[in-house]
């Protein structure tokens, strides 16, 4: 992690919304990761006799329609949502960032081609990609992840290119060129480290969008499928019980909101601390 980001990080704790966002995100991530090794109850047993148990007894948050422990389900669900969002961001970054760097570094026809490609992919909202993938391979969390990931590609390409373009105008890049470095070497040695914080901010925002998108896709049946669980799927499953057992829908809903808000607040805080010129250069940020 770059020093500027670290600095932004520490100085940001004075910034209350960043501190809150960071803590909330950290707690939820820890909560999700914990489910890998431990959950209060198993999530794959069905115990119908114990369905809709009230909270605060044996089950802190009660049980769902299959008699599963809601807290355990939330943990496992948060993990799925997080995994989908994180991998989608990874897809977006791994493909998008090099494209953006290449566009900025190479210029000319290649840049135009990449921009066209970006516009093209932008025309396919994640849901449409998900529809196509699902039609081909059936619904699953992986499909949701790929669909969201594909949508993330132009987002990161755009941010990376915008940031890189402003770096490329700086004298130290010219100095590096005078030192005989090639375009890709400059991109890796000088451009990438200097736009990293920009990318990290964008990543937190895309993470929060990814969690929301996963929820939406699961809701219409294109995402996570039972017996796996995700926050979105829990919400969907809880919907028909909403009038009788509202808490079923409240828990996952609140978890999603907390997660998304936490990540957004954190991203905002980081952005506030960063060089304003840099973030203005490329930031395509749908959530503001």
């Amino acid at each position: 992690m770059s020093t500027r980001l670290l600095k932004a990080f520490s100085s940001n704790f004075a910034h209350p919304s960043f501190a809150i966002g960071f803590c909330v995100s950290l707690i939820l991530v820890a909560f999700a990761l914990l489910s890998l090794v431990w959950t209060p109850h198993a999530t794959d047993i069905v115990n119908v006799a114990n369905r809709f148990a009230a909270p605060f007894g044996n089950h802190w948050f009660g049980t769902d329609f299959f008699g599963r422990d809601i807290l355990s389900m939330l943990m496992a669900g948060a993990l799925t949502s997080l995994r989908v969002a994180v991998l989608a961001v990874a897809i977006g970054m791994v493909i998008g960032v090099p494209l953006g760097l290449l566009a900025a570094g190479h210029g000319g026809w290649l840049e135009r081609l990449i921009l066209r490609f970006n516009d093209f992919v932008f025309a396919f909202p994640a849901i449409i990609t998900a529809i196509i993938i699902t039609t081909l391979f059936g619904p699953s969390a992986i499909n949701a992840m790929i669909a969201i990931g594909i949508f993330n590609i132009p987002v990161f390409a755009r941010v990376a290119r915008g940031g890189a373009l402003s770096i490329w105008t700086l004298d130290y890049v010219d100095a590096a060129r005078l030192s005989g470095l090639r375009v890709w070497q400059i991109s890796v040695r000088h451009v990438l480290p200097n736009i990293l914080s920009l990318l990290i901010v964008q990543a937190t925002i895309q993470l929060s969008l990814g969690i929301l998108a996963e929820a939406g896709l699961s809701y219409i049946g294109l995402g996570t499928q039972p017996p796996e669980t995700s926050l979105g799927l829990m919400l969907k499953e809880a919907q028909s019980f909403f009038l009788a057992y509202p808490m079923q829908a409240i828990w996952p809903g609140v978890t999603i909101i907390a997660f998304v808000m936490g990540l957004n607040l954190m991203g905002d805080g980081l952005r506030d601390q960063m060089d304003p010129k840099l973030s203005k250069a490329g930031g395509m940020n749908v959530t503001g």
Partner: protein
Amino acid sequence: MVGYLIQRLLGVALTLLVAAALIFFLLDVLPGDPARFMLGINASDESLAALRQQLGLDQPAIIRFGQWLTGLMTGDLGMSASQRAPIAELILDRMQLSLPLAFGALVLSTLIGLPLGIFAAQHQGKPGDAGLMGLAQIGIAIPNFWFAMLLVVVFAVTLKWLPPGGFVPWAENPTAAFRALILPTIALALPQAAILARVMRTSLVDVARQDFIRTARAKGLSKSQALWRHGVRNALLPVLTIMGLQFAFLIAGTIIVENVFYLPGLGRLIFTAISARDLFVVRSALLVLVGLVVIIMFLVDLLYALVDPRLKKRATQ
């Protein structure tokens, strides 16, 4: 101007062509036999073959792609395999819902989001700003289907002010059609409004720091006069870009919201068609959605060119 328009339109057309090819060839390799689905479990092989031929499924893919493209130009998309109605008609029929819904939400979110964003920017750092932006954070974080569900429970099931869903064609009863769209539009628009409010605020706060606002104040304008007369228009430029991108999200949102309100929109058409393996409908409807997004982005570009006299390289960035 004309040359530029033609050039951009060609770009749009090319994008759509590539999109069409992508959708067609992806869906063409799909497993699943529409004929079998239509005829059900006990259908005989002869009836299957008969139906397949009737649907033109026995021709090579490239020819069918050509036929589809021609169909797209002439508006004759052929017959739906599962619903036995002209696809163009099916899609047009659904558009009378999906388009007002998406555009209604766009307009509503603009009408709500921009003024709130401006208000927050004007009161930057004060309680009003903090409160609004807190609300906006929540608005952004709420899954729209969940919000939609809450709206239904409150306004339809409990208060019975508005229908919980369903749609009546405009031609039949415009008031009922309008009433049916109110809750879905709100469900779609509010989260988007939250986003727009934030973008508008950020943008305006940014602009407010710029020198020309100080110049305007030096002329004798008050702070809010300067913001309104000089700030808002400048701040709108980045907001416009975001609004173009938001449209893609709105389209996606309509598909989700249609589900909550059992609205017969394009999304529902696609889902029914998918479960019926009716690729003819799926691909055309998908292309319509993609086309809408592309065209809106194009219009935003044009608008940008009209609003911003500088327009140096903006459009390409």
